[in-house]
Every structure is written in structure tokens, then in C-alpha cells.
């Protein structure tokens, strides 16, 4: 049994300017931390075999802000980070630009990595942010990560909502 760990510092923001990873590293800097993990999500040049030129990110800003803050607070409590920070960008991003950055500082490397992993997996699962890819041929398309999984039945928002409402307390994407 591990005693409850005090919640460390957190920072979460949805931003419409370029993300500076070194600013996040400064935000989590802590002489008590022996490990700092940095995760960057960046715009890739292909998706499903199609050549991509850039991505528009849109968000339900107020809800996305709240959820980003909730997720870093959960990560802080679960893994006992000394400090953890996340920024997610909205607007049009060119190839190679950073769409999301997560920095986590902990005494030890394993929980530093795990906390950053938790935040990116929960963002992908829960935060109302959407991306529209722009392709070399001039077309654009909203990305739907559920399309393959739900092709036969269509999205089931009832099951999804039930899962979202009850999952925050029990879900752990870092464990099987």
C-alpha cells in the first residue's frame, strides 16, 4: 500500500500560437526531480498512405481546457509527479510543427514516462479536439479514429458516453 502522494504543480493550456517545448521544461523544472520526460506530438507527412501538407486543429475550447487540466491533475495524483505540464495547439499547423507537448518531472524515470504517456493517451480518448488533414491533391478531411473500429455499426455515443462518464476514476491506459 502506497501512501497518498501530494499533488504536484500542474499546467494545462489550449494555445493558438506555436508551442515552445523548452518553456514547458522550464515550467516543470525541479531540483527534486531526477527525471524529466518530454513528449511532443508533431504533424506527420503521411496518413493512411496519403500525402499530408498540414492539419487544422479545432477544439470545443472551454471543455477542452477543463479536460486538459483534469487530465494533468489525474496524472499528478496517479504517478506523484513533482510537476507536469501540457499544451495543445489549435489552428493550422504545417508539417513538423508541434501539436501537443507534455513535460513531466519526477524523482524517478519510470513514473515520469508513465505520467506523460497517461496524458497523451487520455487526450486522444477524451478531449474534444478535432483535426482536418489537408492533402497534396487539395482535398481536406476530418480524421475519425473510430471509423475502422465501428465501421459495421457506426459510432455508438451511448456506449461512449457511459464509458467517458464512468472511466476517469478507473481507466489506466498504461496498464493492460
Amino acid at each position, binding site marked *: 500500500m502506497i501512501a497518498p502522494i501530494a499533488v504536484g504543480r500542474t499546467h494545462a493550456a489550449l494555445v493558438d500560437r506555436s508551442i515552445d517545448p523548452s518553456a514547458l521544461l522550464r515550467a516543470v523544472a525541479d531540483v527534486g526531480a531526477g527525471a524529466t520526460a518530454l513528449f511532443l506530438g508533431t504533424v506527420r507527412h503521411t496518413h493512411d498512405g496519403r500525402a499530408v501538407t498540414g492539419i487544422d486543429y*479545432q477544439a*470545443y475550447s472551454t471543455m477542452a481546457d477543463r479536460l486538459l487540466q483534469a487530465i494533468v491533475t489525474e496524472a499528478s495524483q496517479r504517478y506523484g509527479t513533482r510537476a507536469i505540464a501540457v499544451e495543445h495547439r489549435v489552428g493550422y499547423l504545417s508539417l513538423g510543427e508541434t501539436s*501537443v507537448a507534455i513535460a513531466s518531472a519526477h524523482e524517478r524515470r519510470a513514473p515520469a514516462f508513465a505520467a506523460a504517456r497517461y496524458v497523451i493517451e487520455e487526450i486522444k*480518448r477524451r478531449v*474534444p479536439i478535432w483535426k482536418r488533414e489537408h492533402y497534396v491533391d487539395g482535398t481536406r478531411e*476530418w480524421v475519425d479514429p473510430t471509423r475502422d473500429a465501428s465501421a459495421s455499426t457506426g*459510432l455508438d*455515443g451511448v456506449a461512449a*458516453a457511459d464509458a467517458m462518464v464512468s472511466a476517469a476514476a478507473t481507466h489506466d491506459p498504461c496498464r493492460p
Partner: protein
Amino acid sequence: MTVNVLLFASYADALGRPRIEMAVAPGSTVADMVARVRDGHADRLPARPLVAVNQEYATYDRVIEPGDEIALIPPVAGG
């Protein structure tokens, strides 16, 4: 009562607007509201889209109150 339903991304494109204002009967649930939004647009929205009420994911049996902020949430794709 009148409620505002926010639409985003592919759903806003599908219905050609970012919000819908609609009158709903007192006691209406999220399921009732979704049925109303899909009325006439059933080919453009999934049967059971994800819904948020006051910026939290909501189940379909939730009763809508006056002043609630309702949003239809397309499959999320952050990161």
C-alpha cells in the same frame, strides 16, 4: 424551453452551421434532443453521437434543464 446545441468539426460541416437553437418540451432527455437534431438529417449524423452537457460527457437518459449548454461531439482526434 429553448436550448442551444453546439456543433463542431464534421458535424458542423454536415449540418452547415455551428449551432442550432431549438425548442424542447420540459423533461426532455438527451436522447429526445438527439432525435430532434437528426430529424431530417438522419443521413448526415450518426444514430447515437457523443453528447456533452455543460462541458461534461452526458448519458442519453440525462434530463435537459433550461440554460444547459449542449454539444454534439464528433469522434475526438487530438494529439
